[in-house]
């Protein structure tokens, strides 16, 4: 059976597309994670972001995936989710 088209079980009050998680209004008191997916020069981009965030007093934590070819390991995702409020991912190329 083709399962690519489903019928909406809801009252259809929300848009059909999956909603993004709400974005924070500002970064006051938030911890921002910077995830390097391990593509070349991603670190250059993220270093600059870290500089700018640190300059305005936002705490930053750095992470990196072992390889850009695969999804992040579960342990890394759980670690990031437990440590930061916001995550920026560097998709450099």
């Amino acid at each position, binding site marked *: 059976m083709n*399962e*690519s088209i*489903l*019928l909406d*079980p809801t*009252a259809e009050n929300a848009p059909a597309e999956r909603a993004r998680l709400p974005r924070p209004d500002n970064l006051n008191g938030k911890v921002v994670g910077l995830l390097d997916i391990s593509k070349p020069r991603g670190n250059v981009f993220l270093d600059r972001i870290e500089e700018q965030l640190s300059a305005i007093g936002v705490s930053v934590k750095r992470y990196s995936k072992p390889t850009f070819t695969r999804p992040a390991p579960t342990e890394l995702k759980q670690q990031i989710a437990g440590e930061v409020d916001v995550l920026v991912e560097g998709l450099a190329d």
Partner: protein
Amino acid sequence: MTSLPADGLVVVAKADCPTCRLIEPLLTELSAAGPLQVLVQDDPEFGASLPSTHFDQSLEHSWRLHTEFVPTLIRFDNGRETARTYGWDKAEWRAISGLTDLGEELPVMRPGCGSKTLEPGIAEKLELAFGDVKLQSREIDVSAEDDAIEACYARGWSDGLPVVPPTAVRVLRMLKGTQRDPQEVIGIMPPDLVPCTIEKVAINAVMAGCKPEYMPVLLAALEASLDDDFGLHGLICTTMFGSPMIMVNGPIAKAIGMNSGNNALGQGNRANATIGRALQLIIRNVGGGRPGEIDRATLGNPGKYTFCFAEAEDSDWLPLAQERGIPAGRSAVTIFPGEGVQGIIDQKSRDPESLARSIAESLRAVDNVKLAMAGDAVLVVAPDHARIFIEAGWSKQRLREKLEQLLLAPGENLVTGARGMAEGIPEKFRDKQVPKFRPGGLLIVRAGGTAGLFSAIIAGWAASGPVGSSPVTREVTL
């Protein structure tokens, strides 16, 4: 669409069918004798030498002609069907075609094959494409996601357990379980106060894992939940424990295979499990009653996944639905704002007086031993306990009256502050004998396996009665 002859013959065939192959040589003769339309379901090479062969690839013609077998021979006169036969039956084909020596060299009879329109999964697709039922729900394309079940999780449609992805074909099958129009609005669904159609019920029933034959019970349970007396809106939003629990009476319970015996309140029976779950998914998905949002339950209870069972009616006790006005022999659901299950173990009582006392003492724990007339309760009496009452000639009503009498308590023991506990009823009850339950607030059902001197208490919402929720019974109509 190719038009069919107003006067003439139609043959529906399948190249894959040996009987169709058997009659294929006759088509030339039939075609020479008058207008003939051949509809072939699977292979355009079949009968291709004839001018009027149509490859019915979409199966629309076959479906509209209600074809069940191939070959099927139909005669039309003045645009109306006047004769039909299927398979190869020499006498019938000769009579319908008027060709008295048709198929002389063929055997007298050969059965045909099933029409492609009836193959599993095809019939529903054809009905969706060409039939009268038009599903109205928004189509959600999840083709970019590799697993439809995960896609349902991602959209927040699940109670935490996997749901069956609600495809149009599955929803159509579910709708076969009811005669009601898919677009009929069954009621206004709280807490978002949105109209809930039969179609939305069917979608959520698919996701819960229901069979179509469960639909009448689910619809009755939903209607009962939406009765103003039940107060579903408040029940969904409360910080307290309760949630709709469904008790089923009457022949429908056996007909759809519900469990009223061993482990009646537990897992493992599809009807019990999925009817209760479907109601919860409707609350979640249609009503918008999601925990942490408008469902403010502090602890909740496991029945909020599903809580549905049938009463064991094989005794002298009057079934719950009949006590509540439904005639014998009819089916009904009773909806109750149930919490979890509190077992009562009494393996020593052998007479009704002792057992009633023991049950009454256990019932004091509903809400708080110091609260009264707050929450209703369902007492589930398992057969071994029920037998002690029944053999002594006690009806349910007599047991209820005895329990009410035993549960009368001196107000001085229950008022705020009494016995060193701040919780309690208002001071004005100090000099009164106080009933534990409001009038009509104690329901008794018989269910469970035949071994075990046990009963169980399912407490209701502490806001029972007109201030919150009253149990509602609704007949199941097929």
